[in-house]
């Protein structure tokens, strides 16, 4: 049997290895930066290091997402014991300059230097993303050097009940949607009696405009695995599935590799860290179905079936995968666990609000100066996120509304600037937290048009099982098309509202029930735009 990893040993060796370098140059190699040309930039940096004969002084580290995707490719040069500098829009020439002029010549490259005192960086509080953009995700040593897998060691000395109590004390709530208390779910699976229990990590991030889970899976895969192991230990599960979208091939590759490494190091598999606890982890890939983010549909998909939800109760914790008790946790939820165990529930409660403690990762996009991936304490106001962190709308446009929660969420108008962004407040404002997509819209946008966009998504992504969602979303989309084209009538609007109610209240699953939300919320906050369209008046100021 493989030798058990000695975490202290690895951490010490890793620290020593690092201290041998005077500089560490980190190149963001996330999907977004790669698309902006991070590959050639990294090769230029490496080539330049070689050319200057600095192989023993400068370490080039490919990392995950540094966050500010809109300014990519990003590079961060960290001198030993000194102040790091971040660079933006790094093309091969700039890459070479970073080595030759900044590292060697200590020159400023003012044009490409990125001010890390931007609110985009300073207002963040990184827990889930603490390693993203800082470590090489393909090396377990990097994760261990950041106290990785320590929580698992601690947990294995605790009783599973005690672990659940710790999570309960932390107040952690599910990051995937409605914010269900994680400890409650755990307790249900823990108490379920069965010869076989399952834990499933939900990485089927299907919301258009959301890529939080992808970042965690790609940039810090071992964190996800540690979270899965903690959840399984607490609940008595011996098998875990990671359900990942097929659209995220890199996340799948990284997780596969991480599972192999962790198994070799006895962090997964049989008798983890020489305890009685064993856990088999398997990856299952989605195949392009938004509905599989819904728990029961996800389970059907893992079982090799059409990804259609089924009625609840019975809940998955009673009868889930293959009829056995199963618990599904979102990837971001799981990624919070190691830090909560390691640093204690009080530390976690110190962030965020009383009812929504901790942080939340958002994919910030749309009409903003700075867009990308951010992690902020819960309860920050909408205005702080959009105007400070995102830097407001560019090109002199005015912020009009924020869309949160994707096709299941809604549009919150700019007048809600002071709304604290947490589970309850968003729901009261007619939207939801969802998985964390946050899209800023400016005054050029027509809100009925936004509702039409989401309804087009929903009518295409409905699983087709229940009539209200299958037909209702299609009919709602038709009505919205007609209204947006200026051909709608009062009767159309009345029918749209009636359909909103019926689809919401009678659909089978949570996704069907929330599919009308974009319509309901825009009707609530921007009704005048609908009525203007009925009078055939233009809505939204044209671009330019």
């Amino acid at each position, binding site marked *: 049997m493989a030798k058990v990893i000695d975490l202290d040993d690895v951490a010490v060796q890793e620290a020593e290895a690092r201290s041998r370098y005077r500089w560490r140059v980190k190149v963001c190699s996330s999907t977004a930066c790669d698309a902006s040309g991070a590959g050639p930039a990294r090769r230029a940096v490496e080539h330049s290091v070689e050319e200057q004969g600095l192989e023993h002084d400068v370490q080039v580290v490919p990392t995950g997402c540094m966050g500010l995707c809109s300014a990519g490719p990003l590079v961060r040069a960290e001198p030993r014991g000194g102040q790091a500098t971040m660079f933006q829009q790094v093309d091969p020439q700039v890459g070479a300059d970073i080595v030759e002029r900044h590292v060697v010549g200590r020159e400023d490259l003012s044009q490409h230097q990125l001010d890390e005192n931007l609110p985009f960086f300073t207002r963040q509080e990184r827990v889930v993303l603490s390693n993203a953009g800082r470590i090489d995700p393909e090396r377990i040593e990097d994760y261990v050097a950041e106290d990785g897998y320590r929580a698992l060691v601690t947990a294995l000395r605790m009783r599973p009940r005690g672990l659940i109590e710790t999570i309960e004390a932390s107040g952690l709530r599910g990051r995937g949607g409605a914010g269900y208390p994680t400890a409650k779910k755990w307790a249900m699976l823990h108490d379920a009696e069965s010869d076989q229990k399952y834990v499933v990590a939900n990485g089927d991030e299907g919301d258009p405009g959301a890529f939080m889970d992808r970042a965690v899976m790609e940039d810090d895969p071992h964190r996800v695995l540690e979270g899965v192991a903690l959840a399984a230990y607490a609940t008595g599960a011996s098998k875990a599935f990671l359900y990942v979208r097929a659209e995220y091939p890199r996340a799948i590759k990284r997780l596969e590799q991480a599972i192999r490494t962790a198994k070799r190091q006895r962090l997964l598999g049989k008798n983890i860290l020489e305890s009685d606890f064993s856990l088999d982890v398997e990856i299952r890939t989605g195949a392009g179905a938004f509905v599989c983010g819904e728990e029961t549909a996800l389970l059907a998909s893992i079982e090799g079936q059409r990804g259609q939800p089924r009625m609840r109760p019975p809940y998955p914790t009673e009868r889930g995968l293959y009829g056995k008790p199963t618990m599904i946790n979102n990837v971001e939820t799981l990624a919070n666990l190691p830090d909560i165990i390691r640093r204690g529930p009080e530390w976690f409660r110190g962030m965020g609000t009383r009812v929504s403690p901790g942080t939340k990762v958002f994919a910030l996009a749309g009409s903003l100066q700075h867009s990308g991936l951010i992690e902020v304490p819960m309860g920050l106001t909408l205005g702080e996120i959009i105007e400070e962190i995102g830097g407001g709308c560019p090109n002199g446009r005015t912020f009009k509304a924020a869309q949160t929660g994707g096709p299941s969420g809604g549009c919150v108008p700019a007048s809600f600037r002071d709304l604290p962004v947490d589970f309850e407040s968003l729901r009261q404002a007619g939207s939801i937290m969802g998985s964390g997509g946050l899209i800023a819209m400016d005054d050029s946008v027509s809100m009925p048009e936004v509702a039409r966009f989401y309804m087009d998504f929903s009518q*295409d992504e409905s699983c087709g099982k229940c*009539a209200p969602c299958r037909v209702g979303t299609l009919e709602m989309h038709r009505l919205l098309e007609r209204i947006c084209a200026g051909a709608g009538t009062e009767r159309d609007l009345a029918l749209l509202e009636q359909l909103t109610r019926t689809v919401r209240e009678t659909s089978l699953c949570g996704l069907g029930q929330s599919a009308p939300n974009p319509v309901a919320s825009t009707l609530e906050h921007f009704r005048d735009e609908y009525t203007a369209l009925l009078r055939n008046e233009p809505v939204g100021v044209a671009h330019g």
Partner: protein
Amino acid sequence: MARPKRPNVPVVIDGHEVMAYPDDTVLSVAKRNGIRIPHLCALDGVSVYGGCRLCVVDVAERHKLMPACGTAVAEDMEVHTQSRTLQEHRKLILEMILAEGNHVCAVCVSNGACELQDLAVELGVDHVRPDYQFPRRTVDASHPKYTFDPNRCVLCTRCVRTCSEVEGAHVWDVAGRANGSYLIADLGQPWGEAPSCTWCGKCVAVCPTGALAWKGKAVGEMRHDPNLVAFLTSARDEGEWLDRETM
């Protein structure tokens, strides 16, 4: 789990106290006690599907409407089946189902003996508000004994469940998704060329509309026999040969 001799779970439906068996659903206990809850996809003798949503009811202390067909009874459960809101929902859902296909009663084999048509009368649907979709679907008359007209299919999956669970052939399944869902035989070939079909006709018997019919039936001549499945399963599993006429 064996049923007790007498129903022993008290449940209140629309103010009437009725006694249910522990394995009853709201729909089954209501049915036995003569309380009518509209439903379409539910069929005695096969598994619960919960797709048509016409049987949604209000259960006290639940935040959401529940489908009667898939909601297990519990002691002293209080159920309302006929509120104005429920009636409005049911009516609109049925309108949606009618708008989705091409239901032309005047030229249908099931005219006058159709569960969908009867539901429209029951729910007071005298016209359909949402846009008709007018989908283009091709009739499959390749089978020597039966016809399949997808224009009349409401995707209730009674045939899918019956063929899979009772006959065991699993000829039928649903392909595609969302409003592009459609019924397939085997690999989507014409029904008559589907090798797994046993010609047993149980799918035809349980179809609530004229989608599956006997060949040679003219307008209004088709009579389905949805109780066939409950008869077969209770005969096979319970050793009880029920009276199909009075079921």
